[in-house]
């Protein structure tokens, strides 16, 4: 399963719910305002770091760039471009968007 989160973790609980319900080995792709969670120093960083034990965490590069956050990405988070986004979708049996 590919889980896609697009809401800021400091404004909504989408990421928290996603991480609670994602099963081991799943991929989580952070896009739009959710990319802030993958950056150093924020309150969501610890959640992401803990989740990396069981989940693959990805963040969309163009959304990080647009927000001035590319240099702050947490170690272990894989940054992908739009092509990488498509690859993740095609490699998995299903996607869930946590709108």
């Amino acid at each position: 399963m590919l889980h896609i989160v697009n809401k800021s973790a400091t404004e909504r609980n989408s990421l928290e719910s996603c991480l609670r319900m994602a099963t081991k080995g799943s991929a989580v792709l952070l896009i739009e305002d959710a990319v802030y969670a993958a950056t150093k120093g924020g309150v969501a960083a610890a959640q992401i770091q803990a989740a990396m034990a069981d989940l693959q965490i990805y963040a969309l590069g163009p959304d990080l760039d647009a927000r001035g956050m590319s240099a702050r990405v947490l170690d272990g988070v894989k940054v992908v471009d739009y092509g990488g986004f498509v690859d993740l979708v095609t490699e998995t049996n299903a996607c869930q968007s946590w709108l």
Partner: protein
Amino acid sequence: MSDMMDDMEGGEGVVKKFMFVNRKAPHGTIYALEGLEVVLVSAAFDQDVSMVFADDGVYELIKGMNTKGIEVKDFSKTYRALDGYDIEKLYVEKASMDARGLTEADLIVDVTVLDSAEMANLMAEQDVVISY
């Protein structure tokens, strides 16, 4: 008639304290951009304008945005033009920056950093508060 013209030009107009509160991250929703445009409009009315950045709103002021990849306008540079419109009172809540691992050095404009109690007092003394 000339009195009326004076009023319309704001020469004798009442100056109120307007506060614009920004609490949303840029790009993901239209709130940040719309809020900024309303602030620019407000500059034409010669009011006492303050802008507050709190919660995800502090992300609006991050340096080094590059929006090419998502094909939207990078309006972050517009914050640097605000002093040209006599909008010079920019306030950021310290707790919001701390929660996001940010410092003043990460921001594109000079701001006044307030603790939550100071922010509360500033809000309490406004005539009009508009939130985005």
